[in-house]
């Protein structure tokens, strides 16, 4: 699996290769406080959302993981949308409440425990059921689980890959575009584009 040297994006953000507007957007994510007090979900539901996010995006390689739950809590509190919703789905707030409740119902049906009390392997087993559309639980009568899983996954993927450190992870440096790109063909790099390393190299 290719990987890229650490610090690439952090370093670029300090240069004038990045516009002020771009730097402001990315630094806000880099500098987000480690602790977040939920404002939409109650403490238990928020802990459940964090636990789900930690299995969708496991980050054993990071000392401080990229937190995906705060963005979801903030968005639901603000009530903002992305322009559309599956007609088969209830409004986003209800969808998350029903869906997270449904994940707990599935955990209890399979393992007689709440999702947050399960070990990682069992949590993954519950999410596998959800991904396959086979999670047990009464909430799923009101909520199509394949659509809920898709929507939650897409929102978490957006939150993760919008983060500068996740962009660094995949070798994306498109934010450093002030001079534009001249070397754009196959296997062509500009100096500021990081070279990928083989697995094992630092």
């Amino acid at each position, binding site marked *: *699996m*290719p990987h890229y040297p650490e610090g690439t994006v952090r370093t670029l953000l300090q240069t004038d290769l990045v*516009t002020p*507007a*771009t730097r402001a*957007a990315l630094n806000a994510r880099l500098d987000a406080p480690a602790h977040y007090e939920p*404002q939409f*979900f*109650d403490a238990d539901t928020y802990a459940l959302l964090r636990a789900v996010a930690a*299995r*969708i*995006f*496991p980050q054993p390689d990071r000392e401080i993981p990229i937190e995906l739950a705060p963005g979801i809590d903030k968005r639901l509190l*603000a*009530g*903002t*949308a*992305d*322009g*559309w*919703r*599956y*007609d*088969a789905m*209830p*409004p*986003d*707030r*209800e969808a998350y*409440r*029903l869906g*997270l*409740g449904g994940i707990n119902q599935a955990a209890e049906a399979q393992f007689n425990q709440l999702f947050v009390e399960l070990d990682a392997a069992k949590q993954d087993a519950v*999410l596998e059921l959800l991904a396959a559309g086979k999670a047990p639980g009464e909430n799923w009568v*009101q909520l199509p689980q394949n659509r809920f899983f*898709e929507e939650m*996954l*897409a929102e978490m*993927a*957006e939150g*993760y*890959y*919008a983060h500068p450190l996740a962009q660094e*992870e*995949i*070798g*994306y440096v*498109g*934010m450093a*575009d002030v001079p*534009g*790109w001249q070397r*754009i*063909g*196959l*296997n*062509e*790099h500009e100096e500021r*584009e990081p070279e*990928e390393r083989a697995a094992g190299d630092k």
Partner: protein
Amino acid sequence: MPDEELLEEGVLNPVQPEIQDPLLKSLLAESEATAAPTEQEQTAPLSDPTDEVDCVVIGTGAGGAPLLARLAMAGLKVVALEAGPRRDPKTEYATDEKAQNFLFWNDERLSAGQNPVAFGKNNSGTGVGGSTLHYTAYTPRAHRGDLQLFTDFGQGVDWPFGMEELELYYEELEHFLGISGPTPYPWDPTRRKGYPLAPLPLNGAAQLMQRACQQLGVQTSPAANAALSARYYQEGIGWREACTNRGFCQAGCNRGAKASMDVTFLPLAESYGAEIRADAFVTEIERDAQGRVTGVVYEQHGQTVRQRCRHLFLCAGAVETPRLLLLNELALTSGQVGKHFMAHPGMQVWGTFEEDIRPYKGIPGGLISEDTHRPKDADFAGGYLLQSIGVMPVTFATQMVRQRKLWGQPLRDYMRQYNHVAGINILGDCLPHADNFLELSDEKDARGLPKPRLHFTAQENEQRMNRHAEKLMRQIWEAAGAKDIWAFERYAHVIGTARMGLSGDDAVVNADGRAFDVPNLYICDNSVFPSALSVNPALTIMALSLRTADKFLASLRT
């Protein structure tokens, strides 16, 4: 709707279920504070300037902006109302997908049917410049045959006029906007005029597609794009700088190199005295006893404002245009408003390559093939074009997980190959069908207006086209050396819903774009398209816009 008890479970701030949007919450809070009863609200004094303008244009995208300039240049007093804000791309645009979400029409629409269409960033813009602020800048011309599907296939409908009515406008637009493209055009070599600028350079995905198509005997060419391959003089604005291959067209160009309306037709219109009012959301279209439009009412910065006009041009796109007509019970006698909603089959095929691609660089749609415009082995009506695609990481990740449902370590592992990923897609014709339509739902939005619900199910013709295209694109990517190839069935662009035709019995507007029911109402955007065309719609919307203005101006002289 679930009951109250269930709603409150697990949350700190239970809310009224139908009220999710921040704007509506603040509106409600305001009205609670003033405790104004509803009856009083309705009779509250409305700012009512007596000044009447010649024309009001609703919407400043590809449908509204060109005609706004044309009308202003003819000496008319014109006002454009744009629902979204005016921003300065040079200072306010970030090269960051999430920060640029303000470019999209993010009010919620409900997507129904077997193939629910994604809106927002997929196809719907807002702000001074409309959806051209985020269009990819693909500007292929429609083909002669696209306008006569019924004649050629016995399916779909013909346009009420032929290519000769659009050709002059295509030529004018290509030169005014500064389109970069190949001359001669391989699939239409007898054009009278070539493109004013050479094509943009090819990125990695375009080179891979070029290489593979050559092996397979599929002809390709650098595509026509509304982004400048060299500095270009723009009437009404001055010099526009060349594209620097930022690859960020779909989330906003900060250089003015892409020909969005805010750097082309809108400054031109303003230089001739047109007034553009941003943040102006139209809610009402007022009429007199004879049914003529007398003015519009809009919300701007918390105020309700009326603007009187002699003529109205509705250019709000194929969702908001029919929504306004339905909300105002206007131009409905044909029964066609909201009907025949179409969306282009836009299937993508992705693969992973040995080569280093870095898909964030270069114009996203660098390479095109129109060999599939009328494929010899087709079992469907119409056809499609093929394009290479570049992609930004968040867009790629979110589309990929929706299709592949990867999560956990496999998701992170797959995304680590981002720099080795390249895609191709199609843009195909779509036949109008009675099952695909827009309606107003019972659910309300932030303004208390019904949300639109759009039904879309790919019918037999679209399904056959998708199968044909997926097979070909997989062959191309295999020939290019791709591994882990996967297809993403998607539908792009919002078309139909207020169709143009020869008779008020089956169309909302006539061949000049004027409503059959309302003599001083014109509609010009993708909603009037009788059929979807097998090319990206922006250039044709702009051509229709100029043509609509010319037809209207000619009617004033008679």
